């Protein structure tokens, strides 16, 4: 079951890289949140109930519900249509697939008995696909999406280290909550008021 969830998570990364509609990001982020909830449930059963509950609630409520609902609210108030960067369509699929393949090769060659190859592959792939999305797009919402994908990668990386580090899994979650809420809740709303469209290209007042 764990393997199946991780494979689905990796496939969702390819979809994220290819997605061109902001609405698709919302669905995929919610779906990834759900997958991380099940992954954490299977992976962290040995840790104490308080830590496990905190992690499960965070993945389900924050990742799978709060973030997508917040995104949907923004989309409702803005007219978000196609969102394309210089690398489009199946070229994005190709690049994300190459990232995943390289991540797998790196993880496979680690030769570390404590390292869980599947988690490590998904984590590294998620971080780099997130960076690829950030570089490839100019929309602020897409940049937020890329940040959340990187965060999901960090969360999986903490799971890759096994269940002996609940404190660090919790820390990864706090990173999620604090920064995401601050970025999204406060500044995005302000940015939206100041700048009429959400293209990052319009944020270019600061120059040498």
């Amino acid at each position, binding site marked *: 079951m764990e393997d199946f969830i991780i494979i689905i998570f990796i496939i969702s990364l390819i979809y994220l890289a290819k997605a061109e509609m902001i609405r698709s990001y919302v669905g995929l982020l919610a779906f990834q949140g759900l997958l991380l909830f099940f992954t954490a449930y299977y992976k962290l059963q040995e840790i104490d109930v308080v830590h496990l509950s905190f992690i499960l609630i965070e993945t389900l409520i924050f990742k799978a519900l709060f973030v997508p609902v917040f995104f949907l609210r923004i989309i409702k108030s803005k007219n978000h249509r196609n969102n394309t960067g210089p690398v489009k369509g199946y070229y994005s699929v190709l690049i994300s697939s190459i990232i995943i393949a390289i991540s797998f090769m790196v993880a496979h060659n680690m030769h570390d008995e404590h390292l869980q190859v599947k988690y490590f592959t998904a984590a590294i792939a998620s971080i780099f696909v997130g960076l690829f999305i950030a570089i490839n797009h100019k929309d*602020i919402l897409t940049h937020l999406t890329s940040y959340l994908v990187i965060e999901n990668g960090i969360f999986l990386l903490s799971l890759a280290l096994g269940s002996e580090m609940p404190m660090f899994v919790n*820390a990864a979650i706090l990173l999620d909550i604090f*920064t995401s809420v601050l970025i999204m809740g406060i500044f995005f709303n302000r940015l939206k008021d100041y700048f009429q469209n959400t293209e990052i290209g319009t*944020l270019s007042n600061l120059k040498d």
Partner: protein
Amino acid sequence: MIEIFLVITIILAAGTAFVRNINISHIMVFGYFIFLAGLGVYMAEHVGETFSEYFLSDYMGLIFMAVLIVISFSSALHYITFAKKREVRPAEAALHNAGTIFFTGAMTGVLFAAHFGVLWAFVEATTIGASILIYHNRNHESLEATWKYLFVCSIGVAIAFAGILFLGLASQEKGSIDFTYAGFKAIAPTLYPGWLKACFLLVVTGFSVKMGLVPLFNVDIDAKDAAPSQVGASLSSVLMNAGFVAIYRFYEAFSGTSILPWMNTFLLITGVASLFFAAVYALRVRNIKRLFAYSSMEHAGLVIIAFACGGIGYFAAILHLIMHSLTKSSLFFQVSQMHRIYNTKLDEGIGSYLKINPIGGLVILLGFLSIIALPPSGLFISELMMVQALITNNLWWLAVIIIGLVLVIIYGLATRMLGILFINKPNGNIYEKGATVWESVIQLALILLVFYIGLLRPQVIVDTINLAIKTLPI
């Protein structure tokens, strides 16, 4: 004690955010600085001790704590005039003062953390505190800078977190997960070097945004430009020091392993690249705040280069950070007055400053002489030691390149700053009453302190720095 201090920080920051009387809001900040100074004294009396596994008091933390107290106090004093002259609304002042408390508390946590996880959490907290301060002016520029700073810092800190996770992976091989500096340092030589290298690479990359180094330096420059000048002063001095301490903790923990030469090479590359970018931008920039920001990047690069050389370079790096903090914060503070007088940050709109505001002009002149490391500036001593460290390591060819890049930056600084001081430019409306003598006196005192240290090298400073670096390999 430090746990109580951190709880007070959160309570006081939250309380200050809701105070609607500006004077009371300022008093709360100064009240907090009394606590801060008290903590400094307490930590100095308990040097070498650890507190509840997560905090420690050591000379490295104490040195930068002293700098933090001086700069934060000066910054808060300057904010009083800033708020008055700009007619800042009580709610905005309250948020700024709350941000100041939170930001200072977070940096204190970075300096005294004894655990990599706790260190990381405090570095993350500085991002939130700094974002509140950068956003103060609430215009297009500040909003853009805050957004970029928050976004890139978050990615940087997430990358550093991945680095710390690699530490966990490395130590799992030995069946122990101890993230305290001392605990990790004890087992570090037995761990797989590949994981340690990966960790160091990610941590330096992630924390580069705090120290203002390559690769994540861009948002730091924007933040120093868009934030009020006294905030720019803090970002250029105490936050840079905190970023250095964060990198230093990892370096020190790994210094007993086989990756030491690799770490030094990596730091050397990072430092030279930072210096190169600073030199390129210093020549073309017209905005005086950005010019000072690139100068800070230059000095961050020099510090990292000196540190990578080891030996006398360790001493030079710490001394350089102290001297740079005092000088650069004075220059940033003075920009605030300059802006009040000329209503511009661009050098073409600022001229004859020495004539229009003689004391302020003297600050810029002495600050310029100090920042370019002319004797008797303390920066001259530290830069001389850096060159010595490079030559000791047989890196004389690199010393030549570095001196060349520094000369380019000095040229960039000289053409703008001497022009501001002495050349009569077709200015618009000049508001001479924008000058404030007592502010310039504080700035002069900070710069004269740099000259005093450069001339006399007080034994207490030399001894404290030597004690701070004694755990590093010779």
